[in-house]
Every structure is written in C-alpha cells, then in structure tokens.
C-alpha cells in the first residue's frame, strides 16, 4: 500500500526534499527515508528515473559535482519546480483534509 501511495506522490516528495537545497540522488533518498521515519523505503534505483522525469519537465536541473574525489550528479529545484511544488502541496493538503474528514 505504501508503494502505491508513494508512487502517486513521488514527484511531490522529491521536490519537497530538494526544495531545502541541492542534493545528489543518494542524499535525496536518505533524506526521504529519514524525514518519513523509514516509511518511504523504496527500491533506490526507482528514484533516479523520477528525478530524470522532473528534470525533463524543467522542474529540476542537475550538474556533475566532485566532492572528496567522488563524482555525483547534484539536483536543484528550478523556479518552475518551486511553483509546481506549491501547487502540488495545495492539492495534497486539500486531498489530505478531505480524506481525514471522511475517515476520522
């Protein structure tokens, strides 16, 4: 169940994590796991296609960076990505409130 819920909201989650600052893929996954208290523990390789999709939609940009001799692709949210994040947050809050009103 978590998998399906996660899949439907992966773009929102990735944008939210990256809105705090540029991160490489591994750090994005770590942040996602840490901020969800371990709930969002998805196959790590599936995050990269999602990051590429967001980049293709001009919601993210990326560039290679070398830290401590290790080469990593670092992702940042674009201005368009921040606008999309705000819209997705509004949609999520509305949906969350509606679900809460029904099930509680």
């Amino acid at each position, binding site marked *: 169940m978590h998998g399906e819920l996660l899949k439907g909201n992966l773009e929102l989650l990735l944008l939210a994590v990256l809105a705090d600052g540029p991160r490489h893929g*591994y750090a994005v996954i770590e942040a996602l796991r840490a901020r969800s208290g371990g709930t969002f523990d998805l196959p*790590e*390789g*599936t995050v*990269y296609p999602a990051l*590429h999709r967001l980049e293709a939609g001009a919601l993210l940009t990326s560039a290679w960076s070398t830290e401590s001799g290790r080469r990593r692709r670092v992702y940042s949210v674009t201005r368009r990505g921040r606008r999309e994040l705000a819209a997705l947050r509004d949609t999520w809050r509305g949906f969350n409130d509606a679900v809460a009103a029904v099930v509680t």
Partner: protein
Amino acid sequence: MTTERYLAELSGHLHAWPLRRRRILAEARSHLEEAGEGGVERFGDPADVAARFNELGTPPQPRLGALAALLGSVFVFGAVQGLENRIPPAPWPEGAAPGGLETLFALATVCYLATLVLAAAALVVRLPALSLAACSALGATVLLLAVHAFRRADFVAGSPPAWQLALVALAALTPPVVGAAVATGARPQRS
C-alpha cells in the same frame, strides 16, 4: 551481485543513446559506491530500473542537435572545397551554366546559411524545433549540392565518378540525420 555485473545488466536493459546511457550508469555507479554493501540489492532489479528509464523516452537535446548541424556544415564546406579542387573547370562562361546548376547552387547556399543561423539560435535558446530546422536545412543543402554535383558531372568530362559523389553525399547526410534524432529525442530501438 557485484556493482560491475549489476551495471552491465542495467546497461543491457536500457534503450538509450550513448550519452544518456553513460549518464544513467555513472549515476548508478556513484550511488552504489556510496551505498556500500547491500547497495545493489536496495537499488532494485536492473530490468525494473531500466524499464522505468525506458518509459521516459529520450529527452530532446537541442544543443547537441545544433552542434551536429554545425559540425556537419563544416564537413559540407570541406567536401565542397575538396571537390572543387578535383573537378575540371566548367567549359561554359560564367552565368551560362546549363541544367539549372546556378539555381541549385544558389538554393544550396541559402540552405547552408539558414543552417548556420538556425543552429546558432538553437544553441542559445535550446528549442528542439530550431535544432530540427537547422538539421533539416543542412540535409536540404546536402541534397541540393548532390543533385548539383551529379548534374554537373553529366556536362563536364573528367568529373569524379557517381559512386564517389554518392559516398560523399551519404557521409555528409549523417550529421543532420543523427542531429535531428538527438534534437527531437528519438531513441534507438535496441540497446
């Protein structure tokens, strides 16, 4: 499974152009090295991961397409210069070429200049349509020059044989065809 074997399997399932494939594999390698032991298992089945990348298609690369058009235009310029040094001089006075040769050359020149302008614009504004237009203009240039060369050979004895002209034309068509595919994001069907 070792990282190398995992990456080889991932590569085997990917349908992507070399540059994109290299980027995907480099990111996966960087991740797996960072993750350490058990990283390969947590990354997911290589076929599943590749399938998700394949679903995305290949993003358009307008700048690469424009670069291909520019490189192709340099090749065309060199090929025309090379041929001009090898072909015998025209036996007709200037402005009296038969078979519409002058019109063909003038059209080719216009297409060539359009290629340069469109490719430069595509490099700046990164629009796939502009990049595609640059590649199309270069393709038209090559075809017009090829027709010109074949027709001219009919009128001038001692011209290079048709197979040589065809070979040069085919080589000159490669950059605009590849550039158009890259510019629009067309992807290879086989990995």
